[in-house]
């Protein structure tokens, strides 16, 4: 390496330390200066990446909040709920920046052989903001809040297999399952399972807003703003900001303006169409992170013409995913491969060949199926996804090259999920992120699932699904998921064009870890405890 390059790298490192350039830029310039990517990464970690430091008031603008939101974890639904919960409450486990599962309230967990019994050891230090230590009783009450006949929790379905939750001392709980589930610790990261202080009667006190998270609520108004300050003695690393303000900024323009003018330090969503323009602003860092949320297009496999696998595959081949991603999502999406398993989820199977736009092959498959000149209706509504109808229209245009006529049917926004989804044979659906492939497959691809949206029946797939669920050996499990992915890709009835990325931004003076958790926007909704000010 020449001297000149060395000097240039030093300058880059300085700039990076002072927060003047982002990691991406650093990498870009370093590679341009002749370094290999690996070396550059190493350099970034050692020289450039600043050490987190404490202090400051972090203003955080969220794109989805409602005045009628509440502290009840059972009815959490908006980003405001979820992000606040990740800031002022704790979960048993949490998803780390690298996508692995890490400890939160639970220091460790282990299962019996068939994964029907899980034991969680709680952190001894953890305490609620009121000062009360977090005990097994609190955890049990919090989980039970989502169980039982009279619960109104939206997370009830996730815990149907749980037959019992018992405590083993003040800081240990044992969860018994009716069926083995190797993913239980992953499930515990679901945003509903926030731990609240228990009342004496075994219910929880969610009303007070007390929690054991990194920040405690000083004041707040739903749909408007919450002011929080650091919870001294939080049981985990982080929480660098002194205070955090969480603002609900539903209007995209207001949110963006607030960010551009420096009124907030980070926002949970930026408008895709302005992403390119914002990237030019040296004061901002834009993050474009793959997520596990997806757009799907289920076809009823038990109904003509989709009962023929060649037709299904022809439909899949007739889609130009790159164009859709470019035009509809402005590049803020990760190309999917017709199986509902995102790179942001664990056990992601690498090496399955990507299916691409191939109208000729699609045409020949249709010929084989004897379905040339196929005409189908595709239902869509913009409430599903901003640009859903445009996307359907674009797809119709692409499929014409394969000799497929797709009539786009615009459905009413209200009641789309009761009147169209699971009713119309071919429609557009938006899925939120699920923590593990198991949850996703069980919910929407298992043969007897209520939400089996494509009516897909594949014996091998269902068999593997059950096996994998209780398989504790990670490599074996990964193999199984890879096979399931191939089955879904080649036989399944669901076209999956893309996994939508999280696109969010922060001011350049906010330091972020190298790897950002992909479970939610803003580092898995944990920006408040993981990020810091660099100036």
């Amino acid at each position, binding site marked *: 390496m020449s001297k000149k390059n060395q000097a240039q790298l030093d300058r880059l490192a300085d700039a990076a330390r002072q927060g003047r350039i982002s990691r991406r830029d650093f990498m870009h310039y370093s590679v341009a200066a002749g370094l290999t990517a690996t070396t550059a990464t190493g350099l970034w970690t050692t020289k450039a990446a600043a050490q987190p430091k404490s202090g400051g008031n972090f203003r955080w603008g969220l794109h989805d909040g409602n005045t009628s939101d509440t502290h009840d974890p059972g009815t959490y639904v908006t980003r405001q709920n979820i992000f606040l919960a990740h800031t002022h409450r704790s979960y048993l486990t949490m998803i780390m920046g690298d996508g692995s599962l890490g400890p939160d309230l639970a220091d460790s967990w282990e299962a019996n052989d068939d994964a029907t019994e899980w034991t969680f050891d709680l952190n001894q230090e953890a305490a609620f903001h009121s000062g009360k230590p977090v005990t097994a009783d609190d955890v049990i009450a919090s989980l039970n809040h989502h169980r039982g006949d009279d619960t109104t929790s939206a997370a009830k379905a996730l815990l149907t297999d749980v037959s019992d939750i018992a405590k083993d001392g003040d800081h240990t709980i044992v969860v018994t399952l009716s069926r083995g589930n190797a993913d239980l610790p992953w499930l515990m990261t679901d945003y509903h399972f926030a731990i609240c202080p228990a009342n004496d009667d075994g219910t929880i006190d969610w009303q007070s807003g007390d929690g054991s998270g990194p920040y405690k609520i000083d004041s707040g108004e739903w749909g408007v703003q919450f002011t929080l300050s650091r919870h001294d003695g939080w049981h985990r690393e982080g929480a660098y900001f002194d205070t955090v303000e969480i603002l609900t900024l539903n209007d995209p323009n207001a949110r963006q303006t607030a960010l551009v003018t420096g009124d907030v330090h980070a926002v949970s969503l930026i408008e895709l169409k302005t992403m390119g323009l914002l990237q030019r602003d040296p004061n901002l860092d834009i993050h474009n992170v793959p997520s596990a949320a997806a757009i799907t297009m289920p076809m009823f496999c038990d109904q003509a013409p989709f009962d023929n696998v060649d037709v299904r595959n022809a439909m899949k081949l007739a889609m130009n995913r790159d164009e859709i991603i470019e035009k509809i999502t402005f590049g803020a999406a990760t190309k999917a491969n017709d199986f509902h398993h995102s790179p942001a989820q664990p056990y992601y199977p690498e090496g399955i060949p990507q299916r691409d736009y191939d109208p000729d092959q699609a045409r020949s498959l249709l010929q084989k199926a004897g379905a040339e000149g196929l005409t189908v209706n595709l239902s869509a509504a913009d409430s599903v996804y901003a640009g859903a109808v445009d996307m359907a229209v674009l797809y119709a245009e692409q499929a014409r090259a394969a000799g497929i006529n797709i009539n786009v049917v615009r459905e009413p926004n209200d*009641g789309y999920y009761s009147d169209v989804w699971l009713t119309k044979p071919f429609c557009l659906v938006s899925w939120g992120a699920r923590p593990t492939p198991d949850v996703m497959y069980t919910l929407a691809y298992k043969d007897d699932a209520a939400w089996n949206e494509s009516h897909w029946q594949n014996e091998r797939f269902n068999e593997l699904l059950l096996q994998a669920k209780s398989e504790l050996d990670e490599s074996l499990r990964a193999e199984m998921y890879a096979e399931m992915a191939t089955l879904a890709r080649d036989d399944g009835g669901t076209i999956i064009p893309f996994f939508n990325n999280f696109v969010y931004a922060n001011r350049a003076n906010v330091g972020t870890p190298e790897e950002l958790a992909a479970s939610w926007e803003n580092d898995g909704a944990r920006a408040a405890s993981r990020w810091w000010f660099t100036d």
Partner: protein
Amino acid sequence: MSDIFKLVMKRLGLGLVTLLVVSILIFFAVELLPGDIAQAVLGQGATEETVATLRERMGLNDPAIVRYLDWLGGAVRGDFGVSLISGGSVGDAITQRFLNTLFLATYAAVIAVPFAIVLGVLVALMRDTLFDRAANILTLTSISSPEFFLGYVLILYLSVKTGWFPAISSLSAGMSFGELLERTFLPALTLVLVVTAHMMRMTRAAIINLLASPYIEMARLKGMPPWKVIVKHALPNAWAPIINVVALNLAYLITGVVLVEVVFVYPGIGQLLVDAVAKRDFPIVQACCLIFAATFILLNLAADVGSILTNPRLRHPK
């Protein structure tokens, strides 16, 4: 004076009837909203059982009439019930929001009303001059521009480009009054632009309308200078229409600012109402609508009383 009292009482009575009709209208409108509140609360994770349980808990299984009468019984006693979704008292949910709205409305009104009237008098005095024409075109333009457009333009120039004022008006507890004024300056300015034009034009029109009156000619023939003719002889007789348009605009400042609240993320009652409609939270919708309706009725009443008080014919009966 007793006549005015009688009139006020009569109008208040009519106002109450109007409120009652409004409440019935709103109740059944909310009732007719498609979609299910329990479903809305639970979102994507809803199952049939949880929805049923939640409906039961919210008391949605009673017939509509029973629920309305329940609510009415409470409302008459000053209890507007609890939010179906948050379970908190409606009064608590609304009070702060309404105070915020009132604050913004007052802020805008304190600037706009005197400004509009003085400007209106000035252009009436200088009618048919270049100044009048320019004012006419400017006010027409500001009336004709969508509020969100005005808001965005202000944000662009006074916030993004110059950084003089914050682009969003989030309020937090413990703000000083000065900070409060600075934070809410842009929405207030937008509202000022929207309502000033209307009031100014009405002031001008009301004054010019009177200029053909014999007593104005008399004042001129007494040798009074033009400003005195306008200010002393025309203005006192023009108060009734001016007060009316001021009242109308004040009502608008309170009830019609949803768009401005959205653009500036101001936590006013309009946003609350829009949210509540989206969530079908009937008690909140009902209470907000009644507040709006009552504001409208009271301001109209105030305008009528004001018109009477400024009219010597009615103030000093024969």
